[in-house]
């Protein structure tokens, strides 16, 4: 695992997919929500 937090977005779709370095994934319709999750979720590896 790269240690990076990744957010994918394909224009034309409205969803962002955020992937944490721990493997946790979150889909959301805006970047603020994605970063709230990726930068702040505690308990990496258990949060799904």
């Amino acid at each position, binding site marked *: 695992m790269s*240690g990076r937090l990744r957010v994918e977005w394909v224009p034309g779709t409205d969803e962002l997919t955020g992937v944490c370095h721990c493997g946790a994934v979150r889909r959301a319709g805006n970047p603020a929500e994605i970063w709230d999750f990726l930068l702040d979720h505690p308990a990496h590896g258990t949060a799904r």
Partner: protein
Amino acid sequence: MPFPRNQWYVAAYGKEIGSEGMLARTICGEPIVFYRTSAGEVAALNDRCVHRRYPLSEGNRDGDTIVCGYHGFTYAPDGRCVAVPGQTRIPRTARVPVYRVVERDSLVWVWIGDAEAADPQAIPRAPWLDSPDWVTVRGMEPLAARYELLVDNLLDLSHETYLHGGYIGTPEVAQTPITTEVDEKAGVVYVSRRMTDVECPPFYARSTGIDGRIDRWQDIEYHPPCLYLLHSRIAPTGVAPLADGDDPRACHAEIVYAITPETETSTHDFWMVSRDFAREDEEVSAFLAESNRTVVLQDVRALDLLEKVIAAEPEGYQELSINIDTGGLAARRLLKRMVEGA
């Protein structure tokens, strides 16, 4: 938001600081005078005389010292006052603060913060800028806007389509998928946009000489607070890098910005374009310098306007962010952490 302290900032291009004269520049609200000593080192002193606060940059150099232009207090590169007029005793407190400076990759970096915390290893690199394998054009424009607006601007290049149409913008920029990554440990934001089989904007058509459709990669690497790198790859459609990573048929441009706050509402907008193609061609250099300056001035005009709008509004106005802002929002969060010292 105030400035992140205990950080390195680009204060100047090395070439701006000659063996004669002085350069006065305010960095993060601190007035600084820069000059080059006979040993070739850059000295950086607080630009205020301890006597009556007259700017030292308005005085004169005498060898490696600066003589204040008001009453003649004379300062050494380490900030110590070494002579005062009419008396032999120099007050012990006669010393101006000095700043740590590192000259690297043709840039003069200054440390804003506690001197003991300064680590030159932490300075991000941009080796193209003084490599013989690359040719660089550069400039600096004063921006009458807070640095955060320039960070927002550079992290979302979809604005090229609207603000820079006919220069670097084409419709496909705003239409192509982006991937945004954050390396929290290293403190880097990456935004990558890989366009395939697209129109070549005039900026690259005229400089690379590539006819027809291209594959265009824009890979941003932002090292907050100051250094922004845009790795730009232009190749005829279908031409991929070789398996060993070598990429001889593509043209590469390294677009570098240094985003240095001057005051809370003004910014030094340093811009550089390094290229590995048409290196001998002076016309291409002139064209890229002129075009990039035009593009930067389009941004400056927009951001100066935006600063006025924001300054006139009450605190706490509500913005609306959408998916194109993913990189910009990540950058803001890293900057906020830096300001809070987290």
